[in-house]
């Protein structure tokens, strides 16, 4: 051929990453997290959503035709990654109508579920969707602890059955575990259990307040001592020592190539940052994605625009979440103090391992914080003294 012949270019392992990076640079909508319903079969004690019973009637949810129209729009916008979440996505009666439509539109599907409703028949239908992964929440290796967190008897039994049913049908599964006071010391056991179930293990360290402002979940947030213990066990300290941050860099990928859609059609920048960008009933997704001022506002949040974080000594060991700052400090540009606590715990572990000097400074805003009355939502600090620096 005098033109370049047909060819797969995947020999370059970075090519896909380059495409994703380019999508972000170009503000292309590449990834969508869709909360199909807030109905749920469980009542987890730490849940950030105001969930409803699985049999609740919620006429205000997007109906199936509206969901399919949104899927058409997303496909036309070039969106590839699509995650169905909830609540419990499978509690939505029309779930498979919507998911099968999405499959026909060739999205790369993920499903977040608690697994309760996954029977052999449901597992077979999920397998036919060829999802990239099904991510299942499991909180403990002990049935009693898991069921206490979910507030649903037999949930451990049903959830672990879901892992097995999906694995038997060749579906890739991920065990997803928010680590809390109740389960953090099970970290190693959970990892082992995930391997036994044939699942990848993924944990999350941050329990957040409810989207409606409720603070009840925060009593489950790990203490400072828990965090230090976990980081001693779980992190590769050398990676953190080698980490660099640039002043002009964004601290997360928010507003670049991903959105969240809630059951009522509201569009948000991410699960944590519930700043409305529009509603798919009122506007096209293209209009929301191209015209909402939210993306620009959040896209401008680089480290050097954050008045406290920009001079913080813990920058390189901090994973800052704008959404947490917004929810818990009511200021997108403020330090998210829960992330500050996590960074302090990483600092302590690196000091212990001799990778940071013992006198590595504790930032002024945290030294001051330790002398103030501590709000309940900063309970990460409330059960332990700040380390002396």
């Amino acid at each position, binding site marked *: *051929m005098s033109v*370049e*012949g*047909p*060819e797969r*270019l995947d020999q370059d392992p970075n090519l*896909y990453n380059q*495409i994703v990076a380019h999508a972000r640079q170009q503000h292309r909508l590449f990834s969508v997290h869709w909360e199909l319903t807030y109905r749920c079969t469980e009542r987890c004690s730490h849940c950030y959503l105001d969930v409803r019973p699985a049999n609740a009637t919620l006429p205000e949810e997007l109906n199936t035709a509206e969901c399919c129209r949104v899927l058409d729009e997303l496909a036309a916008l070039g969106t590839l990654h699509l995650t169905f979440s909830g609540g419990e996505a499978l509690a939505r009666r029309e779930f498979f109508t919507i998911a099968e439509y999405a499959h026909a539109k060739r999205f790369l599907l993920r499903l977040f579920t608690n697994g309760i409703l996954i029977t052999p028949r449901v597992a077979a239908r999920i397998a036919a969707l*060829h999802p*990239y992964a099904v991510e299942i929440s499991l909180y403990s290796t002990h049935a009693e602890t898991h069921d206490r967190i979910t507030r649903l008897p037999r949930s451990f039994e049903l959830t672990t059955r879901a892992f097995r049913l999906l694995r038997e049908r060749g579906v890739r599964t991920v065990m997803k575990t928010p680590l809390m006071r109740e389960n953090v010391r099970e970290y190693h056991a959970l990892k082992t259990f995930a391997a036994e179930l044939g699942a990848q293990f993924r944990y999350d360290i941050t329990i957040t307040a409810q989207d409606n402002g409720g603070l009840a979940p925060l009593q489950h947030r790990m203490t400072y001592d828990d965090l230090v213990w976990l980081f001693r066990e779980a992190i590769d300290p050398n990676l953190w020592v080698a980490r660099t941050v640039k002043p002009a860099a964004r601290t997360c990928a928010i507003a670049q190539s991903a959105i969240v859609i809630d059951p009522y059609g509201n569009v948000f920048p991410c699960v944590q940052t519930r700043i409305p960008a529009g509603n798919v009933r009122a506007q096209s997704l293209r209009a929301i994605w191209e015209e909402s001022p939210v993306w620009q506002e959040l896209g401008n949040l680089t480290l050097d625009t954050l008045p406290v974080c920009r001079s913080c000594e813990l920058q390189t060991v901090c994973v800052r979440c704008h959404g947490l700052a917004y929810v818990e400090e009511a200021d997108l540009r403020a330090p998210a103090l829960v992330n500050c606590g996590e960074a302090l715990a990483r600092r302590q572990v690196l000091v212990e391992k001799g990778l940071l000097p013992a006198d590595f400074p504790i930032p002024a805003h945290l030294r001051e914080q330790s002398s103030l009355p501590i709000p309940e939502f900063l309970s990460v600090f409330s059960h332990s003294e700040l380390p002396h620096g």
Partner: protein
Amino acid sequence: MDLNSRPAPHPQVAARVVDGSAVIVLADGGEVNVLNPVGTRIWELCDGSRSVRQIAEIIASEFDVTAERALQDTEEFLGQLLQSNAVELKNAAG
């Protein structure tokens, strides 16, 4: 390969064309393929409605290439996609 068979994306495939390049994800194995412009055009034509021969004819008409070479390259390329379960062939009658 039956040149009258009609290639269509395999059910495991998730795909989008990004900046003129088809990004094809084989969901079951987690493999990502990125195609060059000619490969992308062939991919776009694999919708189950056209035969291998018809796809090659379109390639020959759109790119500066002889009909024989287009057919040879198209067949070879589709063979690779078939082998990796990126496409499946529907028979001429079906």
